[in-house]
């Protein structure tokens, strides 16, 4: 018992010496944005980083007050979202489908606050104070598949996935459809590392796929995909290619990156945040960003290694998807 007491006293001492600050400052009048990352953290070279870039742009243009909270574990989502909601942020962003259930809970407890979520439609049940942003990754992946189908010399291309899950299978489904459309004779080899952070496994799988005859591999596997770039760099340039994901990844292997499937999380978050300021945000709705909205696509650097004639064909596929002539499957 004495032990308990003394430790308690000790803790009080620490609180005492460091002062008892904290508490939430309320922000009134000013436009304020909060952003909660998933466990990937702020500078994940993926959607969190992209979202933060969009929010930073709002800050620069609209003089908003912005702040981000990184989540370390899934359990952190609720406290982090709550922290912003208590502060009364004009809009609080939840980045990543992993936050879907947490956002549903918090947005119900703070019905007067506005929230946004990226990569989830909350199972179709979107509260009135939430805007759900999703991307048609399958459409962008279709274009990458078409590119791979057109560029392959071996008629074999690869897909490297992270953890087997519906979101990643959306990439796989679109990619496969694209390959098939552009080159019916081409075969797709698929491999999942069952991890988003295992570069060694990503490398081994890529090596295996290349050795089995594939000459182009598209990755949707987070950090695991770094292994693809490590592997392709050791191979003959102009013969073996990698296709990146989320952002322009050509910096990882400048001579070996054919293209990247870009997801404009920054644009989506920027657009919606700005609309929130103007009170025009589509609250209670799902907003989908596909090829049509320029929410998914490929970067300028694609032109480094892909000639105009192929680009033209890609643009043609893009138009057909936008017009609805081609329906891209979003699951396997």
């Amino acid at each position, binding site marked *: 018992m004495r032990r308990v007491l003394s*430790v308690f006293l000790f803790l009080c001492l620490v609180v005492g010496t460091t002062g008892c600050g904290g*508490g*939430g400052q309320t922000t009134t009048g000013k436009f304020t944005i909060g952003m909660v990352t998933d466990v990937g953290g702020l500078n994940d070279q993926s959607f969190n980083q992209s979202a933060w870039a969009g929010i930073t742009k709002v800050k620069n243009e609209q003089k908003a007050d912005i702040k981000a909270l990184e989540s*370390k574990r899934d359990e952190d989502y*609720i406290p982090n979202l709550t922290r912003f909601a*208590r502060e009364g942020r004009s809009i609080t962003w939840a980045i990543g489908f992993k936050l879907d259930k947490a956002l549903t809970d918090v947005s119900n407890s703070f019905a007067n606050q506005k929230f946004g979520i990226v990569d989830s439609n909350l199972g179709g049940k979107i509260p009135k104070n939430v805007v759900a942003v999703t991307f048609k990754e399958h459409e962008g992946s279709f274009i990458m598949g078409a590119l791979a189908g057109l560029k392959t010399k071996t008629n074999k291309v690869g897909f490297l996935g992270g953890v087997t899950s519906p979101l990643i299978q959306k990439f796989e489904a679109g990619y496969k459809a694209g390959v098939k459309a552009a080159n019916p004779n081409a075969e797709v080899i698929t491999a999942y590392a069952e991890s988003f952070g295992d570069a060694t496994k990503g490398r081994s799988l890529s090596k295996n796929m290349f050795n089995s005859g594939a000459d182009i591999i598209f990755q949707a596997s987070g950090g695991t995909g770094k292994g693809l770039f490590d592997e392709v760099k050791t191979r003959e340039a102009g013969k073996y290619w990698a296709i990146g994901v989320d952002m322009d990844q050509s910096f990882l292997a400048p001579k070996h990156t054919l293209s990247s499937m870009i997801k404009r999380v920054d644009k989506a978050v920027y657009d919606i945040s700005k609309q929130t300021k103007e009170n025009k945000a589509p609250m209670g709705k799902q907003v989908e960003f596909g090829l049509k909205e320029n929410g998914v696509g490929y970067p300028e650097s694609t032109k480094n290694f892909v000639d105009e004639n192929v680009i033209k064909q890609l643009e043609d596929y893009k138009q057909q998807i936008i017009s609805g002539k081609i329906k891209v499957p979003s699951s396997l």
Partner: protein
Amino acid sequence: MKNTTLKQNRNSALLTSILSILLGIIVGAILMLLAGYNPLVAYQALLGSAILQPFDLGETIRTTSPLIFIGLAVALAFRTGLFNIGVEGQYIVGSLTAYLVAAKVSLPTGIHALVAVVAGGLAGAAWAALPGLLKAFRGVHEVIISIMMNFIALYFSNVLVRTWLAVGKDSTDKIPPTASLRIGSLSQLFAGARIHMGIILALLAVFVFYYLLWKTKLGYQLRAVGYNRHAAEYAGISVRRNIVLSFLLSGFLAGLAGATELLGTSEYIAIQDAFIGIGFDGIAVALLGANAPVGVVLSALLFGVLTYGGGNMQFVAGVPFEIIRVVFAAIIFFVAAKISFRWGNRKKGKAYA
């Protein structure tokens, strides 16, 4: 006479812990200063956000309760001279099984939760059975088997979620309220925090742990095996039986941690891309708490405060959360070195040369 030495030991253990915590915090502060952060602001943010507001206090307690279970699980195995590095895997199957009972069986409120909790504990025990049995009967080192079982548990949970429990989604639905460990009034008391019955169960487990190990014959035998395997054997205690039992009980506690977290905190299972690392936190909790019941509670509380408050430290002072891991490390290290003990001896002029 015996009593006074016991008391002295206890006091020195307490002094060690307090000195270690202080030194750990100082090490953290030095690192922050070196990197150009303000440690006072950081620690203030940490403590302020962990305990001052009712919501945060509730969440801190919520963070603490699985750490108590896991700490006890590791401590129990240590007491029998075994290292259960497999608590992470036992935690995973505990929550998986609790989810199955919660989602696939329907029972009246309360009973449902209770059955799910117990099922989770049993699953944890079952997962720990293999390393225990192999250790006892084949002499295979428990550390290897446990590490392997952790990976198998992770993939096992993922494949069940993906192909059966949440087809076409990344996580399952929430469990029905009948199986939830949350209590509305309790949450309200803490401004909506997810504090739940898990903490009560954890404290109950602490008491059972104490009673079992120090007041029953089984506990005596478990500790005897841990103290000296050969002597225990000589005294007619079945070492094999106790090794297996120790692993089962340890796994049961780890399974309870997983079950209560699922039924009280998350209420769903998601496909996981990596371990959450609660196993290693639990090992640290047990070690810092000297494998003793009260020690585990206090060190779990300390870890809970640091873990939950650490997030805010980054928010307010810009200090990366990882500094918390360094503070943990320093504290454990100083405890390992029995800092006060050495200090005391130095004063008597009897240094260890």
